[in-house]
């Protein structure tokens, strides 16, 4: 019995082994390019969420009474951090990864070196996560400067953003492994990212929705991220947070083999 279980376990472990020093070299390549272009690269990631915050907080917020005992701007600010970090990861590992893989053939160039394709994918995911954490953290600092981050628990926000970044980098990379053309990413954003953006409790409390939608929201990774970030921002810390973290960890671990598998199937005949 035990003799059989071990190789099986090893086979499963193989799916997680690409997160290694070879993957870091791929990450380092992307980071090198990022250092050349970071000003424009980051500006878009940061300006847009702040526009949302301004328009919805200062504009729509005038029409909205306090939500759950706080100003509307205070209510949406943590969600804006979560969504901007989500967009950063999703965009990096979809459009940008696709360009590297399909048009520039960078994956082909790298797999001729000692690095294998699974490690290329892992390196891309690390980079998507990095960009996500970076833009989420910068927005957090900006909203803190605006007085919207009352609790020191907010120092844990970057750790939550790591989970956020990993989850959405993986979801995007799955599409990159599948889509025939770059235009097909429109489906990913329209069917997955935008609904998540709108229905994860960023703009209104979940309890205004019908019960069935509230339950469905539990299936969305962004719902858990928003709950975590709002709690940490406001300092409302309880056991629920552990469950949100666990949900995200399990989600990340379960889908982790998928982008690797799909990319192999796509490129290696």
């Amino acid at each position: 019995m035990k003799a059989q279980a071990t190789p099986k376990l090893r086979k499963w472990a193989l799916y997680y082994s690409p997160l290694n020093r070879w993957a870091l070299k791929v990450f380092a390549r992307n980071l090198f390019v990022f250092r050349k272009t970071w000003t424009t690269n980051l500006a878009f990631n940061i300006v847009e969420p702040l526009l949302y915050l301004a328009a919805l907080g200062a504009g729509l917020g005038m029409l909205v009474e306090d939500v759950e005992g706080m100003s509307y701007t205070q209510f949406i600010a943590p969600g804006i951090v979560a969504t901007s970090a989500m967009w950063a990861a999703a965009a990096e590992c979809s459009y940008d990864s696709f360009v590297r893989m399909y048009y520039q053939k960078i994956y082909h160039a790298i797999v001729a070196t000692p690095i294998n394709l699974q490690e290329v994918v892992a390196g891309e995911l690390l980079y998507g996560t990095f960009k996500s954490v970076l833009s989420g953290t910068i927005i957090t600092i900006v909203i803190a400067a605006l007085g919207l981050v009352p609790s020191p628990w907010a120092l844990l926000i970057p750790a939550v953003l790591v989970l956020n970044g990993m989850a959405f980098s993986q979801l995007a990379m799955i599409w990159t492994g599948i889509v025939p053309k770059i235009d097909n990413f429109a489906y990913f954003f329209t069917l997955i990212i935008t609904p998540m953006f709108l229905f994860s409790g960023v703009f209104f409390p979940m309890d205004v929705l019908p019960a069935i939608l509230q339950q469905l929201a539990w299936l969305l990774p962004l719902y858990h991220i928003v709950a975590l970030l709002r709690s940490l921002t406001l300092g409302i810390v309880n056991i629920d947070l552990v469950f949100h973290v666990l949900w995200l960890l399990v989600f990340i671990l379960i889908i982790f083999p998928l982008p690797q598998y799909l990319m192999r199937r796509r490129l290696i005949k």
Partner: protein
Amino acid sequence: MPVVVEAQNLQKNYNGFPAVAGIDFKIQKGQCFGILGPNGAGKTTVVAMIYCFHPVSGGKLTVLGNDINDDPRAIKKRLGVVPQENNLDLELSVRENLLIYAGYYGIKREVAEKKAEELLYFFGLSAKAGQEVDKISGGMKRRLTIARGLIHTPDLLILDEPTTGLDPQSRRLIWEHLRRLKKNGLTLILTTHYLEEASQLCDDLIIMDKGVILDEGKPVDLINKQVGTKVIEVDIEPNRRNSLINSVKNLIRGYQLADATIYLFIPEDETEVMKFLNASDYANTYQVRPANLEDVFLKLTGRGLSYEDDTGHESTSYAKTS
């Protein structure tokens, strides 16, 4: 001489289609080994298996002493690859392309910088080191791709159609560089459909078509064995072909028909055949020239090595007119 690559009954199927249908070959250390054949012959598939990109469907493939299935990473550390399609990193400069690529091998920064300067100098790219890759010419991109394949000082360099799509001048420059690399003792594997490229560079070659090896050997031996030393091209009316062939068949080694031309393969001395052609009125025009690899290919397959390239226009190996 030590064997660097050995294939035994090597096979590759794509969805049931046999791209490589069971071939055997050996590549010795220090030689330039050519894989010659038209597009679709299976050349790229063979080299992609050697550099561990495509998994092998059947047979055995040993590279640098390792079975391909055992430890691809150990093999890939020691070989350099110049793919058919340029895949330079367009977001990096010429020099950065070499340095970042060195990073993939885990080469220390100082070592990589020194090696990069050497390679840039060797390939005449020093003046372009800071340029974006997009801005340099096609020939330079090709040379940079070769330089990139050498950044980790490999034991074996694989070049997949290294001069396809280049103008003749850039092509000759690349040949010159490859000759110098060979002189320094590097083992080269080269796929090509240019006969002149194969005869200029290769010590040993296999001629492939439709996934199988048609013949193998040194270029000169192959020509002598299959064709002879000279070829007379005769332009003739189709209805007079048979009678000409009957008249000269004791003087020739063989012949091949292609369009309006008969290629007469001459073992050594063409004087008798020429005398006959001069005296008779068979031929509209005729000329004698040294036999080349194109004749070998023509004889083996019954067709030329001309091919459709990616841009859609027909191009023929320019070795033909020599």
